[in-house]
C-alpha cells in the first residue's frame, strides 16, 4: 500500500506516492536527494536530522513522511538566500568556527534558527538548554554556543 502526499519542500511543491512507514528523513534524503539533512542515530536523540515542519524544528527521523502531507518543510538546503548568500546563522557558524567534523552542523543550524526566534534571551545557559536536542560528537559546543549567539543576534537585528 502506498499513500499519495503533497508537501512543500524549500519552497517547491513535491508530490509522491510513499510507503506509510517511510520517514521524513528518508523522503528528503533518498527520494528528493536533499542529503544535507544528516541521519546520525535514527532514534530521535542526536538531532542531526533536524528540519523545520511548518516553522517548528523537528527530528525528521521521528516524523513519518505521511505526517508531513500538506506541510511546509524547510531543510538546510533551503535557508540561504536565492543569490547563495549564507543565512545569518550559517554565516555565524563559519565566522565562529562552530563545527569540527560538521556532521551535526545542519541540525545545529536548523535548531538554532528556531531557538533564535523563540528564546526569551540569548544567555549562554538559555542557548545550551535550547540545543539539548542536538549532540556534537566532536564536543565542539563552545564555539557552537558562540556561533548561535552571534547568529541569533544577527537574525534579531536583521
Amino acid at each position: 500500500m502506498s499513500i499519495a502526499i503533497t508537501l512543500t519542500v524549500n519552497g517547491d511543491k513535491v508530490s509522491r506516492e510513499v510507503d506509510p512507514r517511510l520517514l521524513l528523513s528518508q523522503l528528503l534524503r533518498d527520494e528528493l536527494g536533499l542529503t544535507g539533512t544528516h541521519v546520525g542515530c535514527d532514534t530521535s536523540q542526536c538531532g542531526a536530522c533536524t528540519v523545520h515542519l511548518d516553522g517548528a524544528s523537528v527530528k525528521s527521523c521521528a516524523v513519518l513522511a505521511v505526517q508531513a502531507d500538506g506541510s511546509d518543510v524547510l531543510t538546510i538546503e533551503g535557508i540561504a538566500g536565492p543569490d547563495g548568500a549564507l543565512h545569518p546563522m550559517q554565516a555565524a557558524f563559519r565566522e565562529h568556527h562552530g563545527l569540527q567534523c560538521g556532521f551535526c552542523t545542519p541540525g545545529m543550524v536548523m535548531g538554532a534558527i528556531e531557538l533564535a526566534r523563540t528564546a526569551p534571551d540569548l544567555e549562554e545557559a538559555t542557548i545550551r538548554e535550547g540545543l539539548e536536542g542536538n549532540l556534537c560528537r566532536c564536543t565542539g559546543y563552545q564555539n557552537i554556543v558562540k556561533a548561535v549567539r552571534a547568529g541569533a543576534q544577527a537574525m534579531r537585528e536583521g
Partner: protein
Amino acid sequence: MLPGLADLAAHIGDPQVRNRGTIGGSIANADPAADYPAAVVALDATIRTDRRDIAGGEFFTGLFETALRPGEVVTSVFFPAASHARYAKFPNPASRYAMAGVFVAKQGDVVRVAVTGAGPSVFRWHAAEAALAARFSTDALDGLVLAADGLNGDMHADAEYRAHLVGVLVRRIVG
C-alpha cells in the same frame, strides 16, 4: 492550576521532541522512562478514549503495556487539581529520558508518589505516600529506602542506584 504538570511538560526530551510529542502518544506508548505516566498516576487522572474512561491507576499494566485494547485511541486526559503537585527527574545525559522520575501529588488528605524510569512500568511508592500523608515533610521520610528488587538495571545505572535516586528525588520535591 497544575504548574507541576506544565513544568514536567517543559522538560520532556528536547525542543524538537516537544514540538511533535503528545500526551496521548506518550501514555499510549507507555515507555518505562516516559515522564507523563508519573503525572497520570500521581494525580489520578482519567484517560478518555474513543470507547470509555480509564482511571489513571489502572491504565499502565506493564512494560510498554496499557489497558488499551487493539485499535482503541486516547482522545483526552483529565487531571484533577491538587494542592501540591511537582515532578523531578534525573535525566539520562544523552537521551534525556528519566533514569528515575518522581511525581508527588497531594489531593486533600491523599498523597500519591508515582515513580517512572526506575521500574518496568510506572509504580507507586506506598511507604513514602503513607509517611507523607501523616506529615508532608522531608522529616517524615527519614530512614525510608525504596527496595531495589525488580527495578531496572542497565548500562546507565543498576537497580540500587535507581532506588537511591528515587529517594533523593522525593526529598527534593517535598523539601
